[in-house]
């Protein structure tokens, strides 16, 4: 009885999460229709104005409309988060699939490397960003991905090691199907659930890490901005010019919360026991 309740409630969180994200997506995709301003054009005479009818969320140090900046910043945040997650998931899935499949020494060595990668201090992102000459968006995406694929690899590996011994896989092997076919056509659809859940959690993580990189001044380079950099731009006078950082912070908060809700909902949906 209790279980049923949980399910229905989690379904609710899934719906709520989707709703929130849909709203945010609408905002960043078609929000530009609502604003007459350009996110890059400066108007130094109107710098640091508080919210008003002409500038709904005020202006920043260069007189740029914060509302407009949020729309474009959101696009960049989403692009970075989604691409970094995709790359991380692809790497993690491939590593997980093949280590579990081939097993033996290969598995042993690769998993040791995964251990190393997991133990790597996160601060190395900083080192690498600055070492590789500043943060272009591509570099950010790759670095964020590089530091996030390991969990997925572990999850996939564990799942594949289980599925590998299931009869359907053995039958497929016995009928002479190729490794790639078995891994991607047979096993992967069965483990996609946990992978998707881990992807959702990765996105939340990457959005937050990206915003903390901005705190260290290593985020997206001006004049472009992500929500993290906008949040950071308000740091000179966070109480006086609250309208710079608060909306960006709220955007991050709401987006990450939306993903978290979806993650919770999906985790329940892909409950491993549901298959049985």
């Amino acid at each position: 009885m209790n279980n049923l309740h949980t399910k229905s409630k989690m379904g609710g969180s899934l719906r709520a999460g989707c709703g929130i994200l849909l709203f945010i997506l609408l905002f960043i995709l078609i929000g530009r229709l609502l604003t007459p301003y350009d996110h890059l054009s400066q108007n130094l005479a109107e710098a640091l104005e508080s919210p008003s009818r002409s500038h709904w969320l005020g202006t920043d140090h260069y007189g740029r409309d914060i509302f407009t900046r949020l729309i474009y910043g959101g696009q960049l945040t989403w692009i970075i988060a989604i691409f970094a997650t995709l790359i991380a998931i692809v790497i993690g899935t491939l590593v997980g699939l093949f280590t579990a499949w081939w097993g033996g020494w290969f598995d042993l060595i690769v998993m040791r490397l995964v251990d190393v990668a997991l133990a790597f201090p996160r601060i190395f992102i900083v080192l690498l960003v600055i070492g590789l000459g500043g943060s272009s968006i591509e570099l950010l995406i790759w670095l964020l991905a590089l530091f996030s694929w390991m969990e997925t690899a572990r999850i996939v590996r564990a799942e594949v090691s289980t599925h590998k011994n299931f009869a359907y896989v053995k039958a497929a092997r016995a009928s002479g199907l190729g490794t790639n076919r078995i891994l991607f056509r047979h096993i992967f659809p069965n483990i996609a659930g946990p992978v998707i859940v881990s992807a959702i959690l990765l996105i939340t993580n990457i959005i937050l890490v990206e915003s903390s990189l901005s705190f260290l001044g290593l985020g997206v380079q001006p004049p472009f901005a992500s929500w993290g950099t906008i949040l950071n731009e308000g740091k000179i006078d966070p109480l006086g010019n609250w309208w710079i950082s608060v909306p960006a912070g709220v955007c991050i908060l709401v987006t990450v919360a939306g993903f978290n809700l979806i993650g919770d909902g999906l985790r329940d949906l892909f409950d491993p026991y549901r298959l049985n």
Partner: protein
Amino acid sequence: MLSVFLRRILSLLPTLLIGITLSFIIIHLAPGDPANRFLNPNQTPEMQSSIRERFGLDRSLPVQYGRWLKNVIFHLDFGYSFYSGKSSRAVIAVALKSTAILSFWALVFALIAGISLGILAALKQNRFIDYFCNNLMIFFLSIPGFWLGLMLIGIFSIQLSWLPGAHLQSLYHHQLGPGARFWDLAGHLILPVITLGLPLAATFFKYIRSNMIETLNSDYILAAKARGVNRSKILWKYALKNSLLPIISLLGIVIPALLSGAVIVEVLFALPGVGRTMVTAVYSRDYPVLMAAVTFGFIAVLLCNLLADICYRIVDPRIQHSPGEIS
């Protein structure tokens, strides 16, 4: 058990070595030369080479690595900081002290808050309090850490002036009595501990809540209920014990992450921790300090994982290591 333990430790050594070697290479190949800090137009080539010699930068990379590794293994000597001339080991030890204090209390806070709310939510499943806790925790999981910190400082330190916003202790700390010292430290710790601990508490909360619900609905609990076993006994003896198990492995991940320093919290609250030390070292290309910190970080991660693993095995003997391929 001991031999298992020792063997596992031995098997961690290659991981450790790979990690450290890789870090060494990355750190040294990152562009920027520590000797650049001393650049000066009137510097003669002799001065330049004397500075490079002072830091051992005149040798080739493999030689530097060999020397460094030898000193670390035989003398536990990580070299002297290029930046301050202090022993890197001492730099890390000092930083570790405050990081340990901060991490410990953040962990305690997170465990208490996460577990108690988790149990509460599980027991009051689908009631208002459950929804409330759930949403609150999602809020804490989703808020960027430094923004939370800034807001806490803004509210409690600036607007209300209730709590100090920086450092571990007051300037006059040493003149206080023992009791006052404790309160002084506690006052300084509250904001950073909350900033660091809230997302952690949310993580613990989620684990505890879902495990608790799962356990409460499992057959043996239902059976125990049917047998008329005391409700509180069911809760504390069976359900809680089983729900706490995953926390152990979670701790194996969380503790080393805390120990390698929460850069943002430390910078924001001016705490002398490992994270801040490391970032400063990164910017000044202070190789010895960076390597000392990284080595320590690796050891912490590997040992904590191992300990969590072993604790898990002791607490829950059902866990067997599946050899991966069994018919």
